[in-house]
Structures are given as C-alpha cells and as structure tokens.
C-alpha cells in the first residue's frame, strides 16, 4: 500500500500522542490523527472536544465539533463553559492538538484574516477554542499542509500564540504550558529550538528533500544537524486510517478530515 502525502502527515502526527494523554482535539486533521492514535498505539488517549464531550470514542470521524456520535461515545458530556473553565483553564489537558491556516517560525498561528483586520482580503473563520488551547494545554501539537501560503515570515494576524517573539516570551507572558512541541506537515516535522524556540526541521517525510522543504517555507528554514527520515506508515496504521475514513464516508456521505 502506498500512502498519500495527507495520510503520511496524519499518521506521523498521530504517533506524537502517547497512550493515556488527555488531548483537546480540534476538528479536521487533528481529529482524524487523534482518533487514529486511539485506534492504534494510544488506546487509552482521552479525547476532549470543545463542544462538551470528554473521553469521546467516535465510531466515525465527526464532521462538526458537536456531532452526536461524540456525545454518545463519551464518558461524560459537559457544557461548553465547563469544558473551557474546569478542564482547559484548570490545566487538565496534556496535549492541545491544532490545525492552522498560517504559521510563522515561532509556531504562532493565524486562523482569523488574510490581509488587514479592518479590511480583510480573506475573512477566515476565526479563533474558536484555539487561543486558550494554545496557551493552557501542557503541550501543543500542530498539523497543517506545507506551502508558502501557510508557512509565512510574518502572520497577517496572530490568533493563537506559539512562542510569540521566541526565547522566553511565553514565560514572560506567564503562560504555564510548554507550547508547541511539534509541527507536522506533509513534507517534514519541526520541533522548537530549546533556546530560541524557532522551529527547526528535525525529520523529513520519506523521499522529501531539504530543497523541497526550503522552497515551501516562507522564511530561511533551519535544519537540525542530524536530520532523520520519518518512518513510513506501517501496513497497520494505513489500514486502520483507511477503514476509519471508509466508515466515515458511509456514515456521513462525505469525507472528514480537512475543512474545519
């Protein structure tokens, strides 16, 4: 079986979740990857969605963040204020799993506008739960497709913080979480430099060159001294992912995974 680039990105990011992690899941690619983790190596991962389900174990991928299947398969369903106050703000979340429209070298993300805020060229959906997930989760995992439009030297708008201006900026803002620990794309994985917090490419997807990553990144991208190759998807990972997506297609009549 040959994996598509989206499947490789989804699978590579799912491996970053550990068994038993409590994960606050964004809809779309993060939700696909988190559920794949739950069905493969991280059976006891606890999935929390901002609409209220805690410990959701959906049989098919949700198309919206409030799908009924999330409620039916959850350990409990609480109100949306409770999710944000008792569970996220109270620091009960190990991993915040997010997507983004734009990202910069310090893993700050934009999901608000392209162009000026008052007169936007493109109005994007906006913040949703992301600003507080990005600031309050113990660590953050980001998944998005790699392109010059997405990986920009300057964001049009900072919706949710990664490392701000870099260095100890998070600490200066009094933020408890460690911030983004990985950004996974269809070309590579980034991790933050321990000092500057700038994103550094630490591994490449199989068959992807440094040049290809550099050409799709809007800043002079740095590579780690030892650059690894991401283990290609296993037969099992691909099978479980495809079966999940097949079930989703049958249940919803449409695929889930990309749009939020």
């Amino acid at each position, binding site marked *: 079986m040959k994996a598509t680039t989206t499947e490789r990105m989804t699978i590579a990011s799912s491996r970053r979740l550990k068994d038993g992690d409590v994960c606050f899941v964004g809809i779309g690619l993060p939700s696909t990857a988190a559920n794949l983790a739950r069905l493969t190596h991280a059976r006891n991962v606890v999935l929390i969605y901002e609409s209220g389900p805690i410990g959701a174990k959906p049989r098919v991928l949700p198309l919206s*963040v409030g799908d009924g299947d*999330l409620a039916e398969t959850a350990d409990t369903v609480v*109100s949306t204020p409770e999710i*944000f106050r008792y569970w996220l703000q109270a620091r009960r979340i190990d991993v915040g799993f997010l997507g983004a429209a734009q990202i910069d070298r310090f893993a700050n993300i934009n999901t608000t506008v392209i162009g000026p805020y008052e007169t936007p060229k493109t109005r994007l*959906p906006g913040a949703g739960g*992301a*600003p507080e997930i990005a*600031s309050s989760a113990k660590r953050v995992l980001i998944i998005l497709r790699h392109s010059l439009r997405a990986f920009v030297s300057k964001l049009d708008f900072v919706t949710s913080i990664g490392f701000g201006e870099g260095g100890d900026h998070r600490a200066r803002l009094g933020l408890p979480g460690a911030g983004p620990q990985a950004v996974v794309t269809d070309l590579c994985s980034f991790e933050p430099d321990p000092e500057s917090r700038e994103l550094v490419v630490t591994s490449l997807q199989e068959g992807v060159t440094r040049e290809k990553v550099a050409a799709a990144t809007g800043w002079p991208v740095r590579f780690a001294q030892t650059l690894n190759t991401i283990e290609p998807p296993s037969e099992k990972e691909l099978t479980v992912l495809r079966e999940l997506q097949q079930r989703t297609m049958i249940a919803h009549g449409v695929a889930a995974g990309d749009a939020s």
Partner: protein
Amino acid sequence: MAELILLREAIRNLVHDGDTVAMEGFTHLIPFAAAHEIIRQQKKDLTLVRMTPDVIYDQLIGMGCARRLIFSWGGNPGVGSLHRFRDAVENGWPHKLEIEEHSHAGLANAYVAGASNLPFAVMRGYAGSELAKHNPNIRNIICPFTGEQLIAVPSLRPDVAIIHAQKADRKGNVLLWGILGVQKEAVLAARRSIVTVEEVVDDLQASPNACILPGWVVSAVSEVPRGATPSYAHGYYGRDNRFYRMWDAISRSRESFLAWMQAQVLGVSDFSGYLRNQMAEEVKR
C-alpha cells in the same frame, strides 16, 4: 411562566428591531425555525450573538437582519467558509456588519457572567493573541488578592435568547440533552427567551440531574417538530450534512442565495412549509 404559543407569535411579541439576540446551539439543536421566522418578519438592526455563527447566521446576515455580530468562530463546520458572513465583512453586502470577535472561552465565560448577574467575567485567556488589539471588550484585570494579571470580558446580557430543545411539558419546563453548548447560560443571561421544542409532552420523565430550564425562567415555548433542521436533535434526527455542503454552493453568489431564501423561507408561511419543500427536493435528488 412560559407561554405555549405559536412561534410566529413568540417572535412577533419578543423580538424587536434593534434587539441583541443570542441564538445558541453548538452544532446541535440550532434554532433554524426561529431564525426563518425572524427573516420572514423582516426584523432589522439586530445585534446577533453566537459562538459559532454557522449557516443560521449566514442566512440572517445575508438577509440584512443584522447590524452587529458578536462571535468566536465563523465557518461552515466540516465544509469551509460562510459566504454571506464573508461578503458582509469583506464587501459590506447587503450592508456593513460591525463585528466584535472573541475566542470560544471568552464568549462562554461572558454568558456565564451574564447568567450569574455579574458585570464581567474573569478568565485566563487571549494571551499573545491580537484579538485584544481589535476588541476593546477584552481587557486586563489585576487579581486583588494575588496581583496576578488576568483577563476580563463584559458579561453578555442579550435582550432575547432563542434555543431549540427536545421536549417541554405543558407548564413550559424544558428538557435538553446531548451536546449542551451554552444554551442554559444564554437563556439565564437574557431578559426574555424563546424555546422551540421537538414535542410538548405530559411528563418529561427526566432524571434528577438532567438539564432542565424551569418554565418560570422561559418567556415562550413553541412546538416546532424538526425545528433544528439542518442541524440535529439528539434522539430525534441526525444532522443533514449534505445540506451543509449544498449551502456552500447556494450561498456562494448573492443571486443564488436570494433566490433560495425567496423560495424556501420568504415564500412559505411557516417552518413546516420549508420542511415540505426540503423533503420534495430530497426526493428529486
């Protein structure tokens, strides 16, 4: 005490031009029937509040009912953009739309503060986000006990909250379950409230901890079967995902949007007419 009345009467009596109106329901139980009635009655200059504007506010905005929008995530869930919302923000069509933009946590807290009769909510949030630069309602506050800097947002006190729920009894006590969102908080924060329900029953048969809004905090209850369509009502019907996808094409141009609204909303007398039309379309597909 809640009056059990027709939705048409409830909207006429309780929603006025210029009101601040919160219609909540987090993907689940979205009060579409009430929104269609507001459009038919051509209410104007509304300040619309909703965490996720969704297709329901795309329709109200496109039909010119809104002057202002307070929101935190404005997309078509699982599909992409809300084209009428974008056209209003990007091009001022059908007229300029003022926006006040928050995060979900900010609005959820603002509803809780409103329901609690507090002037503002205190939270940890918006750190490093540029939302605060553009929204003067996101401010810093110092904890009087520890000196810690926190965030304050003003409470939401809508003139009217409108929600959809599964059941009410004949006294107007309302029961909802599944994804609860912020509906209870929205109703308790508002001066007046309208609840549409799938059915009115003699006995709610609810467990002691069920989410219930006592009839005496609700202004009006209207029975509107399938009144959350195309969203869903847990235990009654599923989400019409195909409609959400179709909305992308319907709403993409002003012409096709207006033609659809004319035929499906303005051209029918109530929500049952809309549902009949949708059913006929479904058969054709």
